């Protein structure tokens, strides 16, 4: 049986809703590959193993995506995303639209057009 850690000592899960503004649209495999490379080059294998960062959703048409991470890895996740974008599209811009504990609430700004 898998041992369970109490919730209180686990870092909180965070979902980051972001938007990419680039001249040409960025594809999902491009972004996923570049994010992995950025994590490895910035934090290395050992540092990267302590981080929890994954690309949950990405819509190339809208340029909107959701990154799943935790409260401790949040700065590293945003930094890696920025470096990943700059590596594939040097003139691109990153906007963090919302950071939330659930994916449902993170997606609220694009579902309902506001952050509530």
């Amino acid at each position, binding site marked *: 049986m898998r041992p369970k850690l109490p919730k209180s000592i686990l870092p909180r899960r965070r979902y980051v809703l972001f938007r990419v503004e680039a001249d040409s649209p960025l594809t999902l495999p491009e972004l996923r590959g570049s994010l992995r490379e950025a994590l490895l080059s*910035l934090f290395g294998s050992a540092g990267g193993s302590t981080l929890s960062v994954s690309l949950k959703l990405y819509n190339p048409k809208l340029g909107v995506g959701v990154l799943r991470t935790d409260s401790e890895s949040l700065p590293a996740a945003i930094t890696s995303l*920025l470096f990943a974008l700059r590596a594939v599209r040097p003139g691109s811009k990153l906007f963090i639209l919302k950071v939330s504990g659930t994916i449902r609430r993170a997606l609220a700004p694009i579902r309902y057009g506001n952050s509530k």
Partner: protein
Amino acid sequence: MKRYVDLKLRPSSESELPSMIEEARRAGFSAVGVVSPSSDLPEFRGIDLVPVAEVEGLRRPRGRYAYVSAVPRDLSEARSLSKARWVDALVLPAPRKTILLDSPTARFLNMRRSLVEIRLSDLLSVPPAQLSESLRILRLELSVARKYGVPLVLTSGASSPVDVMQPIVLASLASSLLGIPWHSAVASLSDIPAMVLSGELRLSKRGVLREA
């Protein structure tokens, strides 16, 4: 609600200024400092513009600026600048291979109530092969600044609209790459630059305000 201030936008041309200001407003800054040869800046809705100066070497800028920062070229210049009363902040640029902030410099900065500034867009332009060396030097200098109680101010140092970033992105860069605690990174983008703009820093430099 926090009021975020980016103390340094360095437009490469005058025509780029409106788009950079618009980007800064969209990013959530309520005030920005603009490095401009003239202290007369146009007015924009929803964001305050403040004239700031950035000098290289020991030249003192002419004119009235809300914030004057100096970029030293070597350690001896950094020491001279740390003693100068007209310097509000010492810029620690990247990339580089030599240290610009040692204990005596930090002690003088603390005595003069001056700040240390890091332009975060510098980190994005560092070639990947030089990034680890630049980060090692900056981390070392920040630990010296922390030891001597020299406050840190974070700026974007943007020279084009692409380099203007949201406060959360700037704080993430500082926290993950430079090891600055999250709350300190946020304070370096809000409370400390706000103190500069309110004139509190200059008053404390003149000895009018003393720490409690």
